[in-house]
């Protein structure tokens, strides 16, 4: 029935519905009808083989290694991960708020720790270079434009490229 009909539009429909004959089946009418309907049923006949329940095909079963990333992690792992993310989010938010409302404080921190960080990185680089190349090699490299310095850097590059070539050849051979 439509709800948007006005009472004037609905009146002829109501009259037509009232003219329809009343349908009053007898008490045994459904049984008489169904007695004339053929229903097919799985009836065990002589020589009939009971079908084996069909197993799920392998391609329909989700592979565990395909969905392993979506599995829920254990609770302690989730708690730790949430705590780390929350800590990082709070810290970064505070830094962002400070950068907006107190830029002078941020500049002070950067100027204080920036130089120290650069100094630390410089010392770290020098220590690493001395450990790897030795005092003599670092001395050669620091002497700008010297033939020995260029040769030292060239041999470093040769070693790097040679190893890359050996690894590429090994990969091709293995493949």
């Amino acid at each position, binding site marked *: 029935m439509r709800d948007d009909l006005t009472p004037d539009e609905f009146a002829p429909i109501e009259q037509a519905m009232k003219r329809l004959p009343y349908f009053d089946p007898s008490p045994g009418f459904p049984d008489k009808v169904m007695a004339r309907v053929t229903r097919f049923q799985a009836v065990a006949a002589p020589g009939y083989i009971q079908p084996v329940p069909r197993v799920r095909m392998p391609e329909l079963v989700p592979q565990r290694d395909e969905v392993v990333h979506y599995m829920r992690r254990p609770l302690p792992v989730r708690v730790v991960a949430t705590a780390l993310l929350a800590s990082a989010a709070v810290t970064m938010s505070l830094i962002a708020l400070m950068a907006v409302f107190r830029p002078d404080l941020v500049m002070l921190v950067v100027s204080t720790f920036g130089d120290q960080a650069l100094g630390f990185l410089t010392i770290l680089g020098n220590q690493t270079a001395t450990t790897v190349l030795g005092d003599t090699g670092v001395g050669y490299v620091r002497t700008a434009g010297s033939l020995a310095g260029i040769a030292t850097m060239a041999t470093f590059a040769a070693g790097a490229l040679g190893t890359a070539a050996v*690894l590429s050849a090994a990969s091709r051979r293995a493949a």
Partner: protein
Amino acid sequence: MMHFLLAFAFMSRPFHPVGLAISWLLVVMVIGFAVISYAGDKVEIVVNTIRDGVGKSVTSGLLGHLAILPGAVGVIILLGATIIGILLIPLGLVAYMIVVAGVAMFGFIAVALLTGAALTGGKQRDNTPRGAMLRAFVIGTCAYLGLWIVAAVFSWMPLIGALLRSFAAGATFVAVTAGFGAVLRSYWRGDFARRSAM
């Protein structure tokens, strides 16, 4: 007596770099044996990742090297967000550096294994796959650390020693970088999780 000891120390000084290089060889051997014995399948995953593309592994390794220091800063920031975390910053940094060194060593073991397998030429001298892995690892490690031993032997020659050491440093840098990148790539692609799920 004192003069004798000083003279002995002076004479033994030229052998110090050689001893150091051999010590490193032994340390890498021991760690490699343990890793291959207990996590041979993981090493195999990293080796396959290197085979998938040496350039990709080297690039990933370079990016990983660049991310080491920001990662340390990230550890400090994350731990500094809580009072207890501030006290744990030194321990966290030590743990972080151990993890980074472990990843680099793991990658180097895989690179040495791949190099050794190529040097052996696929000869079937071993009865088991694990034996072939160990043989390839020993040969590869000797190839890489042999460069350092040769450089150490010639360290008394000013220019030649420096050049040999520079060559060994370049070779080791690429080997460690490729291995480091391959481990990162394998982890990023989920190869380790996929293997453990099977």
